[in-house]
């Protein structure tokens, strides 16, 4: 399978738009990092050396304190263990990730109360939130959720939107008219209202939210797809396929849709940032993922109610701006690469 040289050219053009290309690299790196977040940010040790054995607690079942000779049955507190091993000095050691906290645990102190400001010493690089959870950890895990949320949302939205939009454009006529009305109705229904209804009947989880959001989100893509399909449909290669006896299904999926990829791809980054913003807004309003799921909206809410603790609002707003900006830059570069504007001036 060879890459279409047109596509290759677009990719090359994309890479030549440095702002977008570096954003893309950064974004991919961020996603990869967040995928392996457990290795960087976790309260589980990376390696424990105890009694001559090595343990790798990061993934898998919990190791209770008893495993390492502690007197409790719940999950080992590795930070404590590290200190203990150090002071005991019997050759046992614990290697913790750079940020030795997970996104859920409350790092509380008896004589001081969260939120704690950023501290290199405590390894809370961005400080803690109002319950003593590490903000960096919550940002990173929140990012992971948000990004997968918007990716999944993107896929569901596009699958539905592209199919329906394509069908509308391809079949036209009554079918088109009918769906136009449906979409008009759909996009007018107050989306928040439905979210509230759903969240009042059950707590929205990841899948539910995706379902609800795509229930309303698919319409966005249909209009564009419809117009694009109309255009593609009139092109001669479609006629050629028809003349060969190709079925409608084949024409839509093998001929038209591949040709609309450019449109789909140019819209995708903006949909991703849209997804992130939507999830954050919902979380902010309290209709998003249930606590204690790490979420940016919840942090933003915290930041807003604790303006004096600037690092909360500061971290999350900065994270949001950076992420969205990166995605926007990618989107813009993709658009530019796929649809370069002729820059013409005359003397």
């Amino acid at each position, binding site marked *: 399978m060879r890459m279409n040289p047109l596509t290759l050219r677009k990719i090359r053009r994309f890479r030549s738009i440095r702002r977008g290309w570096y954003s893309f690299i950064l974004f991919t790196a961020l996603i990869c990092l967040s995928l392996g977040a457990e290795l960087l940010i976790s309260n589980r040790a990376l390696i424990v050396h105890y009694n001559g054995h090595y343990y790798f607690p990061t993934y898998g079942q919990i190791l209770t304190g008893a495993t390492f000779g502690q007197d409790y049955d719940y999950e080992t507190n590795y930070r404590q263990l590290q200190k203990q091993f150090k002071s005991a000095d019997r050759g046992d050691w614990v290697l913790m990730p750079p940020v030795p906290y997970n996104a859920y645990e409350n790092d509380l102190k008896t004589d001081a109360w969260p939120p704690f400001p950023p501290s290199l010493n405590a390894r809370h690089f961005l400080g803690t939130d109002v319950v003593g959870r590490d903000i960096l950890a919550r940002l990173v895990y929140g990012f992971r959720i948000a990004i997968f949320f918007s990716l999944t949302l993107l896929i569901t939205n596009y699958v539905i939107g592209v199919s329906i939009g394509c069908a509308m454009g391809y079949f036209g006529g009554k079918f088109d008219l009918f769906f136009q009305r449906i979409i008009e109705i759909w996009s*007018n229904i107050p989306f928040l*209202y439905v979210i509230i209804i759903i969240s*009042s009947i059950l707590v929205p989880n990841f899948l539910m939210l995706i379902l609800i959001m795509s229930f309303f989100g698919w319409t966005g893509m249909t209009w564009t797809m419809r117009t694009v399909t109309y255009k593609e449909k009139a092109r001669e290669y479609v006629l050629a396929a028809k003349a060969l006896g190709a079925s409608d299904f084949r024409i839509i999926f093998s001929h038209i849709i591949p040709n609309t990829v450019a449109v789909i791809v140019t819209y995708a980054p903006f949909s991703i940032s849209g997804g992130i913003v939507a999830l954050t807004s919902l979380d902010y309003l309290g209709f998003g993922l249930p606590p204690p799921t790490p979420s940016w909206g919840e942090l933003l809410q915290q930041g807003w109610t604790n303006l004096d603790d600037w690092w909360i609002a500061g971290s999350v707003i900065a994270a949001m701006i950076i992420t969205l900006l990166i995605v926007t*830059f990618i989107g813009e570069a993709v658009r530019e690469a796929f649809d370069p504007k002729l820059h013409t001036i005359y003397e």
Partner: protein
Amino acid sequence: MIAYFIRRILLIIPTFIGITVMVFVITRFVPGGPIERIIAQARQMKTMQGSTLSPEEQSQPLSGEQIGELRKYYGFDKPVLVSYVLWLGKVLRGDLGTSTRYYDPVWAMIRERIPISLYFGILAMLLTYGICIPLGIAKAVRHKSGFDNLSSIVVFIGYAIPGWVAGVLMLILFASHWELFPLGGLVGDDFEDLTRIQQGADLFRHTVLPLAAYVIGSFTVMTFLMKNTLMDNIASDYVRTAISKGLSFRRAVFGHALRNSLIPIATSFGNNISVIVAGSFLIEKVFNIDGMGLLGYESVLERDYPVILGTLVISSLLLMIGNILSDICVAIVDPRVQFK
């Protein structure tokens, strides 16, 4: 052409009915409506006051009969469709009903909010068009120059941050920290006691931040729409023709390319109307502005069905009329369009 618009207007009807039916039906399934609130209130009273009644008598706060009467009072006693038709009948007579929370006529409530939304909306629109069109032109002509890149970055930053987040940020910085602007609201508390000029200044101070939050995102779309279409148009044949007639490039751009580039902008005009009136509840919430957005949002939270439906009626009508207006705008600027 007229037939086209008449058809468009006729098509509003099924859509309108579809939207309102959907929402009407949904309202019937949301927990926490007025009756449930009354029941809850009754229960609360009951706990507080205690009761001496014998156990057999009643363990629930309200009897079925009482609930029945409440249902009647709020019009929940009839089947959904029947009450929908009744409701629709009233709407057609211009009666949007009465709020089940404030017991004010819904239309009065909406009417009170519309000027505020309009105020921000029109300002936002003026600001957006006023900035984006010249900016778009400048960027199109100086594509890929330092100016273009820099302004793109600025505009993209604005685009990346959701308006309400920007609002929060601005409020923290400019209102709370530096105290340059007030913390929200549309006018100060002492507004009435001020002179005209002071009132204007006060209004201005209150307007700056929310307005910025409103427009920050729309800049990008508009600017780039302008830029891209203008670039397309400059590259098109007729501009070359114009120059070959002896026009300078500048005059060709302003005299020929610009008008064609305004067509897509005109298309967005109608949509903006509905956006204007709908407002953004997130921003309104942050800045404590009593606009349409907040009204809608609060009515949802408070299950104020008549208000929900009322705002929906207004906003969806406006949206659909806005779409038609867009078409009309396009028909005005573009002699080619032939709506059939």
